[in-house]
């Protein structure tokens, strides 16, 4: 079970990376970033897995609790990721106003 979870996380990560590398739409780039982040968070969360674990709410009804530390990271990282995505979207809106496009290959006024 656990390898499947890790594998899925890594596959999600790879899909995100592929999206970033192959798609020209800025929105898709941002989606790719979120996917990558999601993959990593899945990985972290999976690491807190305990066979038959219960949520870490006192009193632990019915057994060993799962590892709460990855959960708190994940919460923190999710919030941070959401902030990043929000910022990226704001930038995309601005960029669209300036360039009239969201094609990543056309937004290269700065180079060299």
């Amino acid at each position: 079970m656990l390898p499947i979870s890790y594998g899925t996380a890594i596959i999600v990560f790879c899909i995100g990376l592929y999206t970033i590398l192959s798609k020209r739409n800025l929105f898709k780039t941002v989606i790719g970033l979120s996917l990558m982040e999601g993959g990593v968070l899945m990985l972290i969360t999976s690491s807190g897995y305990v066979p038959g674990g219960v949520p870490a709410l006192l009193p632990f009804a019915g057994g060993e609790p799962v590892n709460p530390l990855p959960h708190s990271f994940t919460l923190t990282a999710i919030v941070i990721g959401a902030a990043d995505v929000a910022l990226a979207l704001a930038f995309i809106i601005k960029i669209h106003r300036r360039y009239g496009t969201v094609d990543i290959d056309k937004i290269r006024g700065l180079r060299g």
Partner: protein
Amino acid sequence: MTRPDSLSLIMIALALFMTVASSLFAGAKGKEAFWRDLAPLWLFCLFACLTALASTWLSFIIGLELSTLSLFTVIRRGDEATSRLYLLAQLSGASVLLFATALGSSFGGNLPLGPVSEKLFPLFVIGLGVKAALPGLHFWLPRTHSQAPTESSALLSGYAVKMGIYGLLRLVDGPSPPLLLLGIVMALYGVVQALLQHDAKRLLAYHTISQLGFIVAALSTGTPLGRTAALFHVVAHALFKGLLFLSAGSLEKLYGSRDLNQLGRAGRDAPLLFGLFLVGASAIAGCPFTSGYAAKIVIKSALADQGQAVLGLQLAGLGTTLSFCKFGCYGFFRSLGNKKGGSPSGSPGKNAYAAMGLLALATIFLGITPLFLPLLPLGAKALLAPQALVDGLIPLVGGAALFALFPRLFRPRQGDVADVENALVPAGRLLLRPLAFLRRSHTGRLRTYIALIVAALIAIFHSL
């Protein structure tokens, strides 16, 4: 900083003397001119003295670069591009030197100024070689010397290049055949190039290379005699080459040109100038009882067991004579172009004459003193020995005879002669092509960039 030894003191004295002469020639009037013209010269003198006093290679390099910078500000007034070439060339040399020094130093301890290990020796030679204009590394010298304002030309040739020699003197403590070879090649190459020049200062610049070749050959022996000979020639050359540069500068002041094709009336217009020039020229040609003569005799005796080397130096001396015959003839007496060529458009000024006189007196003094005082290890007798006189006269007479026999052969030519410096521009262009590619590769495509990052990450994984 340790107590200065006699070598340092001699160098300091030379630096002071040359700066005095140069600033006398520059003769600043007014406060602004003082700051503009004289301050950098004296700054140079200060840093040069510091360099001479340095006890570690690091402080030597610092002094070297600082003096380079202060001369740079003077050369800038002559020609912008030249000054940049000068600075960058000197910086490269100093950088190589720095690199070599760092390799020799351990953390917290500096490499003392002196001989270094076998492995580092070539690096040091290269580093100092840029300063001392070893063949191939001399690319900056002719252009800088000819384009710079005259007082700084004198200082450059008179002292700046000698700092490299000073470094070599500190560095070399045993026979070094490659250096000897370099010295001979330098001496001959400089002379050959000088013969082909038509620009007075450029001609003198090539002679500087040639004379430095004598010095390098002398110090490459590593014997005390050789080192003394080198040091003596350093001083002698500084004095007479300073004199010659100042006279060439005076010619330029008089006629507004340094081209030997355009000159040729000064012998009548300014006989005093010619007289001073003659002192310098005879010294550099090694006319007996001049400082050049003494120096060359000592050098030859230091190289006595290297017959071919002496022959090479004799040849170089012959060329020197030829070349100065040409200079004297076309610079002062035989007008080629510009027949109507008006009267002098200005005057070198009293201060210029004073500076040149000072140098001429010093040259004569240095030429005569060894005859009475045991200034040189060989003593006065060696200088007066018939063999030595013949040796000294051969190039002189031979050169004069050749010039007299084939005057047309040695007429100043029109165009410039190719040298390493001409290869700089094409070489730079060749280097710039990949650079432009590098710049084009920054396309602004985010996806490519991220792909590169990922590729680098994978590469790192692979290497870990």
